[in-house]
């Protein structure tokens, strides 16, 4: 890493890499077992399932892409579906970058590393980054992101042939693990009141907008819910109860 001093940078990279044994990483891997089962069921060949894991990385986008392939939609339609669902990555990355970069961090490095940002990496990093010295945060994130991505690529390749034998109830539980984990871990890692308000409003608005505008539901829920939470929090702070 160009911005961290020798041994110390390597130390924090390894420290991040050790995050592979953390609860978020283990849960993500369980979710990837679930995704792998879905890909097999959908008839996506091994090579493509592995390729998707490395290239897209964000799990919901992969599920949507497989769904689009199953439905036989055109390339532009599949692109738009996946792109719309992935807009959420932008505020996540925009919120994470100020936490990890220093004045000297080159933008190309951040562009490169941003590929490893998905929900799990976001939650993991936001939870722990305050305990990492600022000049080593990029190394720490790189260590975690690269290790977890590589591990899941290998995982998908290894379990592809055996995952079809998973009992239905176990497969269902694996799909349930992800939302429950996100729900609890995001709540636990949120320090600001605005974040907790945003969470409650987002939970309600997601299904609501799904009824009104299913194509853009996540996006609307995020923009409206986040803005509402921000405004409520401001009023609260200034002593005026909304």
């Amino acid at each position, binding site marked *: 890493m160009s911005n961290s001093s020798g041994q110390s940078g390597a130390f924090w990279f390894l420290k991040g890499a050790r995050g592979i044994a953390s609860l978020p990483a283990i849960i993500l891997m369980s979710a990837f077992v679930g995704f792998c089962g879905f890909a097999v069921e959908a008839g996506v060949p091994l090579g493509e399932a592995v390729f998707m894991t490395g290239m897209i990385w964000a799990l919901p986008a992969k599920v949507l892409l497989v769904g689009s392939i199953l439905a036989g*939609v055109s390339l532009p339609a599949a692109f738009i579906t996946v792109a719309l669902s992935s807009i959420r990555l932008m505020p996540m990355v925009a919120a994470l970058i100020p936490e990890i970069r220093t004045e000297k961090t080159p933008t190309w490095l951040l562009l490169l590393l941003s590929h490893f940002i998905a929900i799990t990496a976001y939650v993991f990093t936001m939870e722990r980054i305050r305990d990492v010295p600022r000049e080593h945060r990029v190394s720490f994130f790189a260590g975690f992101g690269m290790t977890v991505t590589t591990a899941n690529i290998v995982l998908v390749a290894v379990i592809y042939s055996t995952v079809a034998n998973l009992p239905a109830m176990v497969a269902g539980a694996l799909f349930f693990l992800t939302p429950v984990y996100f729900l609890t871990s995001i709540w636990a890692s949120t320090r600001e009141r605005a974040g907790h308000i945003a969470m409650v409003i987002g939970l309600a608005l997601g299904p609501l907008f799904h009824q009104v505008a299913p194509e853009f539901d996540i996006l609307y829920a995020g923009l409206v819910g986040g803005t509402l939470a921000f405004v409520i929090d401001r009023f609260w702070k200034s002593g005026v109860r909304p």
Partner: protein
Amino acid sequence: MISYETFDTWWWPYVFIAIAGWLATDIWRWLGVLVGNRLKQDSAALTWVRAVATALLAAVIAKLILYPVGELQNVPVAIRLFAACIGFGAFLISGKRIWVGIIVALGLLVGGQFLAAAALSVG
């Protein structure tokens, strides 16, 4: 329109995945870097961006529970909601222990299905 099945070559699905998958996700990450590079820590703008990101994630969570994919579709929505709510309650009561929430929620999801199956076979 060209689709996944258009060209019968080994490499076409990979091109399809690269365009509709990789490009469709990474452009947002790159934009996020460019925006995030301009945000100052502890600024109101960053608080807002974080609130939007959190609300987005919350909406994803609600959708994963209410409109799931794969095997979870076969579990009744009442069981899914009940398990998630009680699991979250257990997480809060236990002093925000994530593993407590997860174990309670998964236990209720699996247990609830056995109960529902038993109720059906009795009724």
